[in-house]
């Protein structure tokens, strides 16, 4: 295989075999089938062939089409931004927090604004965790509080002030019409307006969240599908360590505060 020219592999190397499925808003028939074939050809696939057409009523037709992909990608040149940090186990994480901070790390999690889908934040925060990986509540050096669904940015920002939070974990699952981008931006804007942004570690997670998007929106890190609490906890320690390296001797992250009314 030539890593500078990677393409799909179906049955033979470099055969470009690709399966597509989609609906067209036209009634099923020979014209619809030909339209689907032409459409896939215009997408850049060679030898498009319609494997299946289904009349779905209401003048909708469903297609399964195969085509030969002709594009290639230079795999060697691919770069994906991601939060780079060493993965640690729970005892190590606890020990590092104790050493670096000298107290428990306070982490709040929330689905903000209209988002009511807590599956992600629950998996990261709650004792039980997900997939055998226990949540942040299970770490003895982390004080984790899951605020749950539909927490308004106002409430969250006021909690950061009154409770002395070290890190915020924001979950956004609903992404229709980019509502997650609006919510996430709003929170960052409010934290910045209150002068709180630099004092906390701000993390976002969700099925459509990438490190790239997180950075773009002003978050420290973004975690997508497959993230476990261990990843998040390791990242938190990594950030604490980073701070320690930059400002040795100072046991607290920059500007972190514990007074209840700063």
């Amino acid at each position, binding site marked *: 295989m030539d890593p500078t020219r990677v393409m799909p592999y179906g049955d033979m190397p470099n055969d470009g075999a690709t399966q597509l*499925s*989609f*609906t067209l808003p036209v009634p099923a028939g020979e014209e619809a089938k030909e339209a689907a074939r032409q459409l896939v050809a215009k997408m850049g696939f060679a030898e498009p062939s319609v494997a299946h057409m*289904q009349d*779905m*009523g*209401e003048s*909708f037709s*469903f297609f399964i089409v195969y085509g030969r992909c002709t594009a290639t990608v230079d795999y060697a040149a691919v770069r994906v931004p991601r939060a780079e940090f060493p993965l640690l186990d729970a005892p190590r994480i606890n020990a590092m927090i104790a050493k670096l901070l000298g107290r428990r790390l306070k982490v709040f999690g929330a689905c903000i604004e*209209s*988002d*009511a889908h*807590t*599956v992600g934040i*629950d998996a990261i925060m*709650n004792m*039980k965790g997900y997939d055998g990986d226990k949540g942040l509540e299970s770490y003895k050096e982390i004080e984790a509080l899951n605020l*749950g*669904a*539909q927490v308004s940015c106002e409430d969250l920002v006021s909690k950061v002030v009154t409770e002395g939070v070290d890190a915020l974990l924001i979950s956004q699952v*609903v992404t*229709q*019409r980019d*509502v997650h981008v609006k919510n996430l931006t709003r929170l960052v804007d409010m934290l910045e307006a209150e002068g709180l942004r630099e004092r906390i570690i701000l993390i976002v997670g969700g*099925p459509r969240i990438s490190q790239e998007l997180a950075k773009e929106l002003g978050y420290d890190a973004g975690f997508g*599908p497959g993230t476990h609490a261990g990843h998040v906890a390791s990242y938190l320690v990594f950030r604490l360590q980073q701070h320690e390296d930059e400002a040795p001797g100072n046991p607290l992250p920059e500007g972190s505060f514990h007074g209840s009314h700063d």
Partner: protein
Amino acid sequence: MQLRLDRERIAAARELAAEIAADLDELITGSTTTSVERAYLRLLGLEGTDEHGVPLPNVVVKHIHDGDGLGRGVCYWVANAMYRHDLSLDEVAEGVETGALDLVSEKEEAPEKVMPVLDELAVLGLKKIDKQREKRERLQNELGVGKEPQLYIIVATGDVFIDASQARAGVLQGADIVAVIRHTAQSLLDFVPFSAVTGGVGGTYANGENFRIMRQAMDDAGREAGKYVMLTNYCSGLCMPEIAVLGAVERLDVMLNDSMYGIIFRDINMRRTLVDQYVSRMINGYAGVIINTGEDNYLTTADSFEAAHTVVASQFINERFALESGLKEEQIGLGHAFEIDPRKKNSLLYEMAQARLVRQLFPRSPVKYMPPTKYMTGNIFKGYAQNTLFNLASVLTGQSIHLLGMMTEALHTPHLQDRYLAIESARYVFDAADGLAKELSIKPGGRIERRAQKVLADAVKMLEEVASVGLMEAISRGMFADIARNPDGGKGQDGVVVKEPDYCSPFIDLLRDKEGSAHGSDASHAIR
């Protein structure tokens, strides 16, 4: 495929559920809420909004609540003003809106004198519901209904006209029940958005206009498909009783209606939503609507295997609350789900045990079976296989309402082909296994039966604990779904008012008087 279950244990579960509900009776029947009072105004026929777009029922109820008069019931104050000034209901609302009238500072005439001015409107309001109920029965007789397990699809575009088009396609493909998902977080709006037909996010606004448009579309599609299509919406959240009225008037057939769900997953205040639920269920009962409860959701946060008994315990409680409101068992669609981790060995065995258990515990309930969601991964092909097993479990255990699993669950709201493929798979499995359950028996003393018996025993134990501490305390301890809620927390508490001794509403008796009302009846058949 019968499980052998301990009848005395089932009877004990029902007795405990009755005890748990009775403990809250004083709170529930002794209080009213802003949303309940708005629902009564809607039943009396008050519609429309003020110049700022605030619905008139909100304007009038807020006015009375601000004047500390809600404990007597909005109907009393409105009737008092109508009687004293010889005004219509609309004129009274207009007077409140313009500030010309201050209802609570009016001279208070005796209720016996003023309340009769509402009689005609109240009867008229309920007649609208009677007519829709009759029409449903007529159409169901004429066209027939889908065969169980009935195929339930959702549409969620945010635009009712696109919803209608996608739903029509689904009905022609074989769907029996159509649900329109609501705009994200509508459950937390303390008003019903008037006339918003487009612009919803993650779903479409639930309101009278959209109910009417979908009803018409589904009646038309049903005629074409040769069956009566049932229409579903969400009678939950802060406007529960008002949505119940709108749904009753526009002939919705199924309503998601469960205050336990609102408390746990939407952080709605317990007192608020328990009172709202009581009145909503009276209205749903009167309208012949099937309610669906949301126990399936517990398994999305708690462990689906370990917490199976919490679903059953909650179902007994929910059944009791529904009977108290006058719903019949045939209207109580209890929810459960196929949510065990697919990597667990013998997960299908445990799913079948649970599904069959629920079926046998609630034999007359149109139980609603929910598809896998928690362990759907984005691998749509594996998801399709998971849904196939779900379909098989459903037809073998005799479920009533079958919410179709989407292979793209966890990715996006269903695309047209997702719905089609789901219907095709379910139809295939239901036909392929049509007579299979009758040929199989569950091995006596085998693993399926033992699992079902254990879940039931654990449910009874949990009900004992809930009964001993009370439901509100049980919820505060996180006994359901691993989520804890405080009785004084949550949204909407400021809308709860203790009824005064002279509280008036013409509807409580009228809704109760419905012929055949099963108020307070027992689900006793399952015990004997």
